[in-house]
């Protein structure tokens, strides 16, 4: 029997289903890891050992023929996901104590396949941020260097996987919130095509951008989890009617890899550029053809994103006013006074900033100049990709312009923080599938920090993206690297 944290989800499920280990043992191992690491890395906002143990017992008693592809696999969920039995507080004071009365479709599908939710992970409040520093409960730490960010906003889920607490975890990717932390913690993250995974039960930030996205330590795991979650849902009208994914290991010979010059611009850190170029050279060695492409409207992506996402957020967060759920502050006793006092006390500064921004861009008299124009540029960005994909099969570039930055280094400069997402945001605006896979390390002050490579595909070409990611993973050993000090089992 292999060590719990040495296995990916597919491997763990196979061993568990075959009776080499039990689901209950997996849960105890996962909670041992929580115990060992959570106080230092600040991964979970709440866990539920009792429900996990109960579910594990049920799975252990299940006959062999009913055992699903994730049989007995512990999973960590971002705290913006609705699951009965857990507190879904979005790392916000305004939702402290909120227990959703229903379970998200995507969680239900994974549980049906045998996965066991163990807890809700730390995040930037309402998924707004790139470092977890906007969590009302303090930031998660990067297992590769605990003074640095694990990225965001799906920080805790990334750390749970990178630190070996769970083999898989779910995040949500609105502007890079899964790919960027995956890159910064040295694991695999995959954002499916918008609509492939039902959003029912994902607490909305930017509704036209949000997509539930898995983290794992292997490409085959994110592929399996995406496959299990996807498909139409009668509770989500924006869900794509897509056949389940069919990924095959792809032969890279003749694959046309588009390299956008805009993704290798001045803001890219030197070593990150080097790792990305090495990855492209490897692709060429494996038979792929490098095709220079251009995404000319990329420079406007951050501006467009912060208009569209904040507009939708200002609307989606209007329901948090103290009437039905979450925290209530009475204020001056009037209804409007209660709304104002509740929101004043409940939301953190970044959430307030974005609500104000979003409210402004939708206001009468400003709509056309801001929101209306942003929608037009969004269309241009989408067309950029469509044009580029006429001459290539996938687009490859870095995921994040720099490796994990020091906690606190951008806290007071929101625009610098927003630029962390410059390479990931265009993908959400266009609704495309994209993966981040480990592509090496950079040395920063004597510590090795992971770098991620982003692979972007055309609309609905999720399987192609994952096939290329898997070919890259097979040709390299970066995904096998583990954080030296904070990987469960590494210290014992």
């Amino acid at each position, binding site marked *: 029997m292999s060590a719990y944290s040495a296995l990916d989800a597919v491997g763990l499920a196979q061993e568990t289903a075959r009776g080499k280990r039990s689901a209950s043992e997996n849960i105890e191992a996962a909670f041992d890891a929580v115990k060992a690491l959570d106080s230092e890395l600040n991964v979970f906002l709440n866990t539920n050992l009792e429900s996990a143990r109960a579910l594990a017992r049920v799975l252990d008693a299940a006959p062999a023929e009913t055992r699903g592809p994730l049989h007995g696999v512990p999973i960590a969920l971002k705290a*913006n*996901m*609705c699951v009965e039995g857990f507190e*879904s507080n*979005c790392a916000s004071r305004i*939702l402290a104590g*909120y227990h*959703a*009365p*229903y379970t*998200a479709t995507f969680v239900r599908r994974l549980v049906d396949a045998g996965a066991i939710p163990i807890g809700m992970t730390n995040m930037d409040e309402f998924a707004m941020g790139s470092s977890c520093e906007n969590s009302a409960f303090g930031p998660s730490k990067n297992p590769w260097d605990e003074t640095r960010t694990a990225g965001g906003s799906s920080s805790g889920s990334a750390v749970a996987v990178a630190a070996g607490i769970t083999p898989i975890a779910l995040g949500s990717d609105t502007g890079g919130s899964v790919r960027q932390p995956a890159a910064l913690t040295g694991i695999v993250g995959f954002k499916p095509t918008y609509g492939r995974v039902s*959003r*029912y*039960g*994902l*607490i*909305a930030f930017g*509704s*036209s951008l949000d997509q539930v996205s898995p983290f794992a330590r292997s490409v085959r795991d994110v592929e399996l989890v995406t496959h299990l979650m996807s498909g139409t849902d*009668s*509770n*989500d*009208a*924006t869900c794509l009617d897509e056949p389940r994914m069919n990924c095959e290991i792809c032969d890279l010979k003749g694959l046309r890899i588009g390299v956008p010059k805009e993704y290798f611009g001045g803001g890219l850190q030197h070593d990150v550029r080097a790792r990305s170029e090495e990855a492209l050279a490897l692709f060429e060695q494996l038979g792929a053809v490098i095709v220079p492409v251009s995404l000319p409207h990329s420079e406007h992506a951050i501006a467009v994103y912060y208009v569209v996402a904040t*507009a*939708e957020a*200002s*609307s989606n*967060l*209007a*329901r*948090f*006013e103290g*009437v*039905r*759920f979450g925290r209530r502050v009475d204020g001056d006793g009037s*209804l*409007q006074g209660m*709304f104002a006092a509740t929101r004043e006390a409940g939301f953190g500064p970044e959430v307030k900033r974005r609500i104000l921004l979003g*409210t402004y861009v*939708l*206001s*009468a008299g400003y*709509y056309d100049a801001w*929101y209306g124009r942003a929608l037009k540029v969004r269309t241009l960005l989408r067309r950029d990709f469509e044009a580029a994909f006429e001459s290539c099969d996938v687009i490859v570039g870095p995921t994040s312009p720099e490796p994990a930055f020091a906690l606190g280094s951008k806290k007071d400069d929101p625009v610098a923080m927003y630029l962390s997402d410059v390479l990931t945001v265009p993908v959400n605006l266009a609704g495309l599938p994209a993966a981040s896979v480990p592509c090496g390390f950079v040395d920063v002050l004597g510590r090795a920090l992971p770098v991620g490579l982003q692979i972007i595909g055309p609309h609905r070409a999720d399987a192609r993206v994952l096939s290329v990611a898997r070919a890259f993973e097979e040709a390299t050993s970066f995904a096998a690297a583990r954080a030296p000090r904070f990987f469960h089992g590494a210290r014992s």
Partner: protein
Amino acid sequence: MSSETEVPHMREVGYVSKKTGVRWMPVIGLEVHCQLGTRTKLFCGCEYRFGASPNSITCPKCTGQPGALPVQNREALALAVRTALALGCTVATKSKFDRKHYFYCDLPKGFQISQYDQPYCTGGGIQLSTGKFVRLTRIHMEEDAGKAIHDRGDMTLVDLNRAGVPLIESVTEADIDTAAEAVEYLTSLKEILQYCGASECDMEKGSLRCDVNISVRPAGEPWRTKVEIKNLNSFRFVSAAIEHEIVRQVDAYEMGEEIVQETRLWDANRNVTRTMRSKESAHDYRYFAEPDLPPIHISSAFLEYERKLLPELPSSRRARYESALGLSPKDARNLTAERVVADFFEAAVRLSDKPKECSNWIQNELFKMVGDPELGTERFEELQLKPFDLVSVIELVDKGSIAMSSGRTLLRAMAETGKSAKVLVAELGLAQVQDTALIERWCREALVGKDKIVADVKAGKPNAINALLGGVIKLSGGKANPQVVRETLERIIAQP
């Protein structure tokens, strides 16, 4: 109804000020919210019932739980489209839902899903009896809000049962000049909505709600500031509020005051309108396209399908009842006020080919049974009578098998028991006596001591015989056929 052209009409109505003699012209437009009678709410599967215990008909979607998403109800779209077709509107092949934002405790998501700049239909309207055409600007779909209940001490209670119930909001042009026109428009609109099966339009249950936009101006002058009046729970209030508001605005102008743009509430206790909120506190609703719902595409096949489901509308039926069936305008109106009645009437006419008799029996007998506490029927459709039942009674009376008064008794008994006419005629012994020997015996009995009448008849006054008829019918217990009785009496008197 489909005519787009405005019929020229007299604009010499208006309100002449007693103080100044100036003729003031009211300018009135109506906004009507109508709950669609779908099985489930607009964006979730909750089955709304008026009067259910508070918050018992709710789910994560209609209570705005974080992470819940709306999913469009197809039936609501079908009913909305059918209504649009009945009103002669142009249905858009593509439209969309938008979010309309404001904060209130009965609005669970902090926004209402509505339609802003691309309503599902535009144009259309309703022709009034004067020939005037009241144009519709648009109709759009939206979800209803919940209910805030403020009269429980210092608490406000929120009931979200109504939250998410489908509504269509129809908005007219300012084509209405008088309270009477407003009421006629509303009456026709309500009939059409009911005929289409779109809504039960019960104002007491809030399934039909009307807001009035109104201003006044001296004849020939441009439009002035309008005021919106809400809280109008009956057509009577709509009429009274318009009458009151015309006088209030004219008085204000003549006193040198200005009318401010505001929302006013109708106070039914004091019969006045009063300020609810002024324009300064008007909302910026921050509309934008609902990202959780795909655009609405309406195919021509769907339109044709719905068009085929359209019933013949009341105005057309009235015209036909008058021209083809020879009914009076009053009878035609009474029979078409509700679709169930009109459908019943037409079925009865098809079976009997006796429109006038059917009309009379329905209005005189069936209408009386509706609301009769002994029968326990509050609505026409609850009557235990089929058109065939009515026709069988009419036939029995016409053939002389039963007396008219027995026909009434029979019909009521049928409604009470659900038994057939044939069975009840036997059970109740209602059949008219055809036995001539028996009738002759009753006649001879009635003639005893009536020599004066006999003499009058013999002297050439045949109508004198009428004085004897009642006596014979009475002796027969109402079962003697009056025609047979008359003939028998004539025969006996004529005998030497």
